[in-house]
């Protein structure tokens, strides 16, 4: 079974500031998109599994984001919450075309 993925526009790449997240709502669910310091763009589920904190507002360090509510550390690569806490969020593929950033959902 193949699932066709939808390509959703997030923002112009230039509008995304390194290490400051951007939130988008797709069909009622939140996705947090981040431009890392090395200009890679990563997208994960935007709601922290702990107490539903908005991950897009967290502090970004390397390939992780810290939830602003209780500092859960979430990987931007695989969506896993780091030790000593646990949990995970979804991850999404991203694409940059003509200076525009998309997530695939």
């Amino acid at each position, binding site marked *: 079974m193949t699932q066709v993925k939808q390509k959703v526009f997030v923002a112009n790449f230039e509008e995304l500031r390194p290490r400051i997240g951007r*939130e988008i709502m*797709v069909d009622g669910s939140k996705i947090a998109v981040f431009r890392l310091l090395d200009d890679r763009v990563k997208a994960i589920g935007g709601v922290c599994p702990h*107490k539903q904190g908005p991950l897009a*507002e967290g*502090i970004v*360090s*390397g390939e992780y984001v*810290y939830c602003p509510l209780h500092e859960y550390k979430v990987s931007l690569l695989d969506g896993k919450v780091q030790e000593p806490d646990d949990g995970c969020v979804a991850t999404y593929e991203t694409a940059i075309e003509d200076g525009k950033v998309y997530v695939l959902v």
Partner: protein
Amino acid sequence: MGREKLLLIGNGMAGVRTIEEILERDAAKYEITIIGEERYTNYNRIMLSNVLQKKMTVDEIITNPMQWYNDNGIKLVHHDPAVKLDTDRKQVTTASGACIEYDKCIIATGSRSFILPVEGAQLEGVLGFRTIDDTVQMIEQAKHYKRAAVIGGGLLGLEAAKGLLDQGMDVTVVHLEKWLMETQLNEPAGNLLKQDLEKQGIKFLMEKRTTRLRGTTRVEAVEFSDGSVLEADLVIMSVGIRPVTGLAKEAGLKVERGIVVDDFMAASARDVYAVGECAQHNNTIYGLVAPLYEQGKVLADVLTDRPTEGYKGSTVSTSLKVSGCDLFSAGIIHERDAIKGIEAFNGLTNSYKKLFIQNNQIVGIVLYGDTSEENRYYKMLRDKLDISALNPVTLLASAAGEASSSVADWDDADTVCGCNGVTKGTIVNAIHTQQLTSVAEVTRCTKAGNSCGKCKSTIGELLTHVLGDKVTKAPTGICGCTDLSRDEIVLQIHEQGLKTSKEVFQALNFRNAEGCSKCRPAINFYLNVTFPQEHQDEKESRFVNERMHGNIQKDGRFSVIPRMRGGQTTPQQLLKIAQVAEKYNVPLVKVTGSQRIGLYGVKKEDLPQIWEELDMTSASAYAKAVRSVKTCVGASFCRFGTQDSMGLGIKLEERYEYIDTPHKFKMGVSACPRSCVESGVKDFGVIGVENGFQIYIGGNGGTEVKEAQLLTTVATEQEVIDLCGAMLQYYRKTGNYAERTAPWIERLGFEHVKSVLLDPEQSKALLAELDEAVAGKRNDPWTEVRNNENREQELYTVGRV
């Protein structure tokens, strides 16, 4: 057979150090008695300057409390001077008539201030500067008298002058020579020093010979040989010191200027020794602790039967303990015969250096303004390095930038603490073997830093260097990314000139290259405070509240709390708030804890528009920053109010709003002691009283309730406002990020914080520093977003599909 009896006459720095050295070598050998004239147990005399300059208290300079004597089984004949020494019968008599026998006797009676033998020298208000009692008297008299004359512009005189200035006196230094500190400085350096001290407010009369002190019971004026007169109601004599040798002389010991000793510190009678400022070795008497401690070591070896080469004399170096006047001097500092000088002056930084050279060796050093290279040159001098390969330019060229200026690259044999002769190797070894993590611990274990204290920053650097490489985690790290403490990090930011958090993480080897949610905001804050002009605030390192200028709520929505200075509002504002709340379906409107109105549950993307429609500014209710000021209605409406609390509250808020602090900084102004706004639990609380304002600091009403402490009472609103600024800046500079004022004050000590804030000069300097640091930065962030400066509005966008 009982133990041998060791008797020390003189409970001062050199004598007690000798006893410590003996105890370290063989604690059981002697039954020890110490005869002390002063009423204090042994203290760090050097720090009297700091006491007078309000940097320390008398308690803090006591180095050996009574407990130490007890613990070591030492009998202290306290506050009872020795008056007679009988070297035949081997006994000493004290003023109270006690008679003490000895097998070995050490004389360490030090020196006294030399009081010029002029008419009037015995008048009230004429003091030396040598003991705690002198210092306490100076501080006491400074409260009642205004004009001080310090006679003698040497090291001691200048430190006394600075101290009296800090005590609020009008101070004139009278000096016989053409320039200051003429034995340690040459003319250009002496003149630079004078200029700098003049800038700090000290006045000078040069080339004046004092002939008489005028007055009936208390001194009123100083007369000079040229007929001129200086009015003064306090006179400090600091024209030199004289070794205390009377006892030795009467006992028939060989005494010239001092008690004559050989290389093994032995005086001319059997079993009698002398160390310290009272001893004369090879025609030299020393007046600084470093050589005296060396003498003490030799004597300890002698008295515990260890092999020793004996004392061979010392090269001494000098610096001055007055902030803003960095100087260093060592060796021979006057050109003559075969001694030639090379010098350099940097007019931009007002710094000067001169090296004195003989036979291709540096024999003397004078540095003024920039002393960063004292170690480099001092090493060349001490090791008699042949400098023929270096031309004058390379010699004078600054080594800055070269690795050698960092303590990490010093040799193990290099001296870190000149006073105590402690090398880098010894300190590093102690850090490793005894797991030391703070400067205080290093001082306790190695003595480095316990005298003049100027080496403490180097010790700090060394600690950072050693611990930074350590794999095991020291408990001091500010977060999991580093083992460095806040102080160590800030020190390195200063020392290495680290200007971005990226540089900090890299240079200090943080385990996460980009830090974590704990250290990122902290480092950003420290950089903002350290380099207010150069450091670009890093938005991506700010916690969301400060990045978005609203308090994030548990559902990810925000609150909007507009500024109402002093809790005062208008019907127009209330109308606007009502309209906005209705239009945007704001779920909760509430009066906040600090007399504001809050709108809660606002969606992020609505924030800029709401701010626009409110047309009000942000109350910073979400920030680690100066918060709004709570006030009561005060004298204008309340029948108890003594002061215009609302007016003052608004002024305070206007003056300091939008200034970042380590944690939130709350204020309150009450108009009478009923204290309706709970000034007693504010970081900065003001209570109006009949004749002025009481100021309370360090109160917290938060998670840990802490009552504020009374700082002082002042007469005018302006004084309240200025003190508040000084406190803010001191808190910004010394506070740990996320540390409220209560723990901050506890950590620094209330008395210390108080002494800084109430010192007019320090307080003024802090305020000026604050104003400079925040100039052009105290802008309302909401307005910036409304104006879309730096495309700020993008940050509030939420894409919807």
